[in-house]
């Protein structure tokens, strides 16, 4: 269905899934996150309830320090909430072990960061293979094949043997997106993916993410400070001081 919509611009602003028939991929209920240090206690998230549906492209906005990255790290199973439950595909992950969480991240989630986080001493294609190294039973040949396919998708087929230091910021972020894609995730979590890029390159990255969402049905949750970008997405969630305001 999404493939049919992909090429018709007039459908772009409409939700990909009808709310009634929507399948939640991520569900956060009564989430609270408190950072406890020796001297101070920071409430980063306060009573957050949020559902992300399959195929959605959601952007998260809010002033600095309001808890956007914290929210993303909880959605990405990188951290545990102080209270509340997180469900992935309808299953609560509260009691999951380190190993089960790692496996779930590997299979379902792709991350894109503001500062790319490429490993500078690995070539582009080796970087893209990293998540596949943690997938059991995948042969080296298949890893390479998948990495090349992902690089093709982001338009970097000609740069596979380069090292990150030899690429522009926009190209680096595309490598990072290819890396997030290589494992075939259901969800891509992107924390200010265009924050380090100028507007032209930022636009390219935004187009790429929207393309992945439309064509491949990948669910995207993106933190951004850019109002223009946010308006292009299906849903904008606004945060203020740890709470959802819209």
């Amino acid at each position, binding site marked *: 269905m999404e493939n049919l919509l992909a090429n018709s611009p007039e459908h772009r602003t409409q939700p990909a899934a009808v709310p009634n028939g929507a399948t939640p991929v991520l569900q956060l209920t009564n989430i609270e996150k408190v950072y406890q240090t020796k001297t101070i206690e920071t409430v980063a998230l306060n009573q957050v309830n949020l559902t992300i549906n399959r195929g959605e492209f959601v952007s998260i906005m809010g002033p600095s320090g309001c808890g956007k*990255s914290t929210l*993303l*790290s909880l959605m*990405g199973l*990188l*951290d545990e909430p102080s209270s509340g439950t997180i469900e992935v595909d309808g299953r609560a992950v509260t009691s999951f072990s*380190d*190993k089960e969480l*790692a*496996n779930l*991240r*590997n*299979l379902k*989630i792709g*991350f894109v*960061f503001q*500062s790319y*986080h490429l*490993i500078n*001493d*690995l*070539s582009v294609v*080796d970087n893209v*293979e*990293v*998540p596949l*190294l*943690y*997938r059991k039973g995948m042969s*080296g040949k298949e890893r390479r094949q998948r990495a090349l396919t992902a690089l093709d998708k982001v338009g970097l087929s000609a740069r596979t043997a380069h090292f990150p230091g030899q690429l522009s910021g926009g190209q680096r972020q595309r490598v990072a997106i290819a*890396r997030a894609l290589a*494992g075939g995730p259901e969800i891509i979590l992107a*924390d200010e993916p265009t924050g380090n890029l100028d507007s032209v390159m930022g636009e390219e990255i935004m187009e790429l993410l929207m393309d992945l969402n439309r064509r491949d049905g990948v669910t995207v949750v993106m933190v951004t400070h850019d109002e223009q970008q946010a308006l292009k997405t299906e849903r904008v969630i606004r945060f203020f001081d740890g709470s959802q305001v819209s």
Partner: protein
Amino acid sequence: MLRHLFTLIWNRKRANLLLISEVFFSFVVLFGVGAVLITVGKNYLAPHGFNYEQVWRLEVRAGQGSKMPRAELDDVLRQVKALPGVQTVALTSGNVPFIFSVNNSEFAYKGKKSPVTNNYDADDHYAEVMQMHLREGRWFAQTDDGSNHRPVVITQDLRESMFGDEPALGKIFTYGEPGKDPKPEDEFQVMGVVDNVNMESDFSAPIPAVWKRLIPFDTTHWETANVLVRVAPGEGGILQEKIARTVAGVTRQWTTEVRVMDDDRLHRRMFTLVPVVGLCLMGLFLIINVALGLFGVLWYNISQRRAEIGLRRAMGATGAGIGWQFLGEMMVVTTFGVVLGSLLAAQFPLLNAFDLPAQPYVLAIGAAAGAVYFITALCAWQPSRLAAAIQPAVALREE
């Protein structure tokens, strides 16, 4: 994953050069110390080829300018042997076991040269005093008095080098450079073959040896005589005094000192032990230094790679997986250092350095490699655990 680690280490070879060279350096030091220890230990475990226990040596002196006619010397030996507690008495040359006195030469048989060989003079009772083990033939005896050549007994290693698989008994050999017309006493006839002997120190390798029969006329120009005495177990100072008095009693001017061969052995042992212990301490000190350095570098590396660790965790690595990865990286680095070190170490047996057998070197390479892997694993253990404990959420924070 292993290939990934090799790629990572290889691409970071410049940054890892310090670590690799530290590993290389430790390996070479451990190899050197190991080769010495293995050689010394092997020698220590090898039998001496004679029994030094309950053997005393007498240094009998005739006194200022006086000589020692054989008849008087025989009288002294007879009286010492007659003392209760004395079992056997033998006459030998000054280079008795465990003291710093060497007398060696090369020999030849049909143009085939022997290695450098220790020469000893010995009388007919020597083998009994030293409890040597005859493999072939017999020790000299009175019946050899009429021999046209000098009767000798040789060690197994000398036998192998000169005669190989051929029979040795009865063969006649000469010095390496015999000259035109060798005297009959410079033509040596093999009467027997004994086990290899190590008469230098507990830590030396056996050296080929030949014992030449002392012929009666030999002693007339002597000023000192070296006498070996085997005594009954438990004999001590009282018998030593009795021996000294007995020697003085036979001829007024002669004196003797009584030394215990086991004391000579322990004294000599210190001369090897002290440098070996020094070498070990130095090696240990260096290794501790290297280990501390390694530990520091690894610790620093991990703090530098927090973002990468967070990223890998986000991509699906478990905490334990990260710990293993860092341990594995160190093992790969160690492998580079060990391979380089082994290439250097292998030159010793290949070039036959120091004329030593290859086996201790090969063992030392193995031991040094094992020790280096152990040390680096130990150093990497704690930093790897630290890496494993880094939370995946840092990926979203580290810039």
